[in-house]
């Protein structure tokens, strides 16, 4: 029988920030909160940059050709989080090199992207996501 749970918030019983979920194979349990993506963004990094869609992102700024920074609405608890980034162009679907800049903080992340030769270059489809602990 199908079941639907209507709630506005979920909390663990033993620890409010820790709800265990059973693995697909049934042999392991894992924290639900730790596996959730805490920040993600899809933005156009060309021309006047613009956010297409996002979660927990307050703003994005153009720091120069191939250099971007996006700010978090709710900060991470530390700068030890795991982030990733990817970039490409709509016209040729060629993925480009995306790296982190030195701005890797609890409130913002720098993304840099370049062409195949390593020169800074704007990309029309940029994406990034973050896993870790919110403050």
């Amino acid at each position, binding site marked *: 029988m199908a079941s639907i749970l209507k709630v506005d918030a979920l909390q663990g019983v033993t620890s409010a920030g820790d709800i265990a979920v059973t693995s697909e194979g049934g042999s392991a349990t*894992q924290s639900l909160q730790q596996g959730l*993506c805490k920040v993600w963004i899809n933005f156009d990094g060309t021309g006047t940059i613009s956010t297409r869609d996002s979660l927990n992102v307050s703003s994005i700024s153009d720091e120069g050709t191939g250099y971007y920074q996006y700010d978090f609405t709710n900060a991470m608890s530390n700068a030890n989080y795991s982030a990733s980034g990817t970039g490409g162009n709509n016209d040729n679907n060629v993925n480009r090199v995306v*790296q982190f800049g030195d701005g890797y903080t609890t409130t913002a992340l720098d993304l840099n992207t370049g062409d195949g030769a390593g020169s800074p270059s704007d990309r029309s489809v940029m994406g990034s996501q973050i896993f870790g602990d919110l403050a």
Partner: protein
Amino acid sequence: MASELRVNTLKDAAGANSVAMEYVAGGSAKAWVSYKGTATNAVKDSLNISSVTDASTGRYLPQFSNSFNALDYLSQTTGNNADGPVAANDYDQMTTSSGDMRYKSSGFSVADTKYAVQSFNGDLA
């Protein structure tokens, strides 16, 4: 006391923002790691990672605490531009119990990176 809740769908109290448990479970990362790949190497934070081996220059091997059920999981890898601008997953070397992060410099020589991160989506065993 421990409790277990079995549901198919979660909604907010107004009955909106519905999400099936399939997407909660399948859409969550099953492992991720933030690793300092330069001296002194260290795991900064992680989920479902028991250790990371510094295999060689520009190559790090995260070991999963709980294994994946197959080799068809998704991995994403990124690094810091100052010292290792080219980041890659080495799918040929990954197993159900370990990932594989590779980094190279802009000249495509192997190079360590201070921000080595990798995340994994898929089904655990």
